[in-house]
């Protein structure tokens, strides 16, 4: 059984996901792992008791297919693979249809919505997905962070989570099954816990677990 078949049958291990709500800044869906499915709204995205917003990792309220394709990370580069070439095709076909995603590139998905891929900092392997108006991600978030171990948060354009209210950059680090934040030139770590408000400088934010085993 291939990986994609596992996924389509619901056997794929859940991707760790968090929602970070930053006061005065926005809501961010942080997704771990190296492979993420992208698509339109699934049947259960808003149903009662639904634990996931959609069947896909990144779901957009748009006229997209339920699964439009997959974004993969290989080291520090990201690739887009459209639906149809991923599940059933051979490795050569997959390789041929695979497309390198570069900074500020629109992900080529047929439909009314335009999703922009950006990798703001070469120092971090995390990337950001954002939508051009008037579309929104499901889950009421403004952006999606395809997270590696570090995420830059700060006021400058090289930050994945750009928050103008912050005075300086912070680095969010995934370590020992928890997210911690550290300011540059400081040795003090601030630990995030599920659902509790945390302050970086004077900006309050709350990290919620969407799906992440062992997160405290």
């Amino acid at each position, binding site marked *: 059984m291939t990986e994609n078949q596992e996924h389509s049958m619901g056997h794929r291990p859940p991707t760790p996901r968090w929602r970070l709500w*930053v*006061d005065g800044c926005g809501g961010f869906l942080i997704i771990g792992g190296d492979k993420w499915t992208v698509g339109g709204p699934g049947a259960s995205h808003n149903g009662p008791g639904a634990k996931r917003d959609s069947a896909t990792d990144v779901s957009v309220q748009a006229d997209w297919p339920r699964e439009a394709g997959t974004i993969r990370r290989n080291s520090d580069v990201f690739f887009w693979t459209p639906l149809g070439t991923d599940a059933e095709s051979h490795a050569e076909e997959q390789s041929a249809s695979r497309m390198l995603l570069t900074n500020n590139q629109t992900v080529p998905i047929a439909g009314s919505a335009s999703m922009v891929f950006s990798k703001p900092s070469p120092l971090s392997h995390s990337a950001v997905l954002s939508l051009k*108006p*008037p579309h929104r991600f499901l889950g009421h978030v*403004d952006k999606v962070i395809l997270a590696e171990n570090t995420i830059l948060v700060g*006021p400058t354009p090289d930050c994945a989570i750009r928050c103008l*209210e912050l005075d300086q950059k912070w680095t969010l680090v995934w370590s020992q099954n928890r997210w911690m934040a550290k300011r540059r030139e400081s040795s003090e770590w601030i630990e995030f816990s599920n659902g509790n*408000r945390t302050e970086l400088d004077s900006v*309050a934010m709350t990290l919620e677990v969407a799906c992440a085993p062992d997160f405290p």
Partner: protein
Amino acid sequence: MTALLDKLECNLAHHPFSKPMNFTYPTGSTPLARYTIRRGIGIGGFGEVYFAVSEAGKEVALKRIQRNLEVELRGVGHCLNLKHPNLVSLYDICRDDNDQAWVVMEYVAGQNLREVLDLSPDGLAESEVQRWFAGIAAGVDHLHGAGLVHRDLKPGNVFDDLGMIKVGDYGLSKFISASHRGGHTESVGTFHYMAPEIGRGEYGREIDIYALGIMLYELLTGTVPFDGESCQEIIVKHMTAIPELDGVAQPYRSVIAKCLEKDPTDRFHSVSEMTEKLGLATSPVHTLAPPNLRSTRASSAMPVPIMASLAAPVSQPVSPAVASNAIEEPFARAVCSSVSDFKCWWRSLDRSPGAKMFLLCAGLFVLLVNTHWLLPLLSVVGIFYVPYYIVRQMVLHVSQQPTYAQAQRIATTSHVTSRAMTRSEWRNAIRNELKAKHSLHRAAELSTSWITASFSTLVLAICAGIIGLRSGEVDSLAIAPYGWLVVIVMIASMSILGLGKLWEPDEGEGLPRRLVLAGVGGGVGLIAYSMNQFLMLPLDAGIARGIDATTLPQSLYKGDIPRASAMMAHFAVLFAILRWWKPVDPLRRTRLSPWSVAVAVVAEWAVHQVLPIPQPLGMLAVGGIAIAVQLSAPWINPRLKPAHNGVITSTDHSGTSRIPVLASTSHQPQRAGGVS
């Protein structure tokens, strides 16, 4: 991301400000049963705004009304059933279990115009200008058509809701009433967008037209037409300055000029009339595309900032006479003007330098000969002038308070500068804060200073007594000079502290202040003489001078014994030659400067050489005054770092020493020593 009521700004320099946002409700809270708060959006003048999601998944903004409840709820109530695509929809007003009022309204996910303009300091491309302005105009036109005035139009209240321009935060709106267009006491709006008639309490729809004119200018140029270092400066420019529109293309130039007319009746009478001149439609703008253009002007294919040439801040021509007239005291202005006229006449006098010198000497001689009646006359003038000046300042301050100064405090409540300021910037910022201080607060500070001055004087007198009376007999005659010292230092210190409190809002001009201080000094001299007589202290003690080359004017002295007029003249000169407002200025460099004490004592010695008084009491008194006023006057320590994000940094990257920045201009200045 943005909000409906995102930022109340008095963004004087248009720097991107950040602000500490301390929201009451954290993520996951459900103050209203059906809505779960996800995050805070912003904090404005009326309360906090949250992004929340209903049980069914509807995204809304919840505005918690904390301040000016009645004003806000009344305004929102009027607007609940307004329907227009260019207006942020208001859904409902709800109350939580604690009877706290909440406004449920449409969540706007896009940027507000303030954020957009901050990212485009040269202004927007013409197509974008038209898109934004057509949307704003359509929304405001609908409000006016419904009989409402927005009253707080500014870029922070206009949003790009995923392609649709929406005007929000019209909770301040008020029904237009032909019979009741004024009389509302709330201070509203933001200074850069405030029409001049708001100061008179007039809130007709013309104030929205005025604000639209300012916003159109800002969309085109990236700057506001009337900017300044302080709120007062901006207000004066709104009232007096002619906007510099030379670089603005037609038809925008003529439209903006008409919108910014000082007289509301000279402006456009409706938004549609205004947009017609621009060739824009005020029908709802639904699409992401640029608005319907009636004009035949060809729009550029490439979005180019059409006003890039105006990127640099435009200095506005303000009539200095008009600007200063609003602030200066008329008598002081007359004296300054006379002195200025005299200088002009003197320079234009067609005489040789020798002849000029002769004229000068003759003039001085005439003055000296007439000191016996001139000094008492000046003292009498001073006695009347000082109370007049104090009352005038207080009345002026109180009359200004409810309109702009308090609005400034609200407007700057939630702002943080994101960079270290230079010393002058820091001084300006704090000076603005001092201007906005309420009279009651000022009076409370003054009374605290007076109490501190009293204690300081007593402690100084006790110290002087311990040293002076350590040997010899301690009787009433020996103690009396210290009693004199206490009374004089206390009265003089309180007078100087009072004047310093009046003068702290601005740097001020030296001459009027010196005149006032001379009057106060005359009064102190009279009290000093009376106390001397009352305590039967010898008036000839230590009267000998170091430089005894001149004869004493007998109108002031009886032989070598000073008369009352001599004491008055002595203290008047002493108070006039020293800048006593400096040691009581909250922005002085150090709380207690030994240097200024030394200067005061040396000045006393110098005056003593011309107009002697009993010594060493004179020098002790002056030294005591210099110490007491410094110890008692409030002091804002520029090096102090507030505990919570109050100060960003004290050193910049280049290593240059920078002045820390207060986090919020609404915070009371950090003071050392507990004088509040």
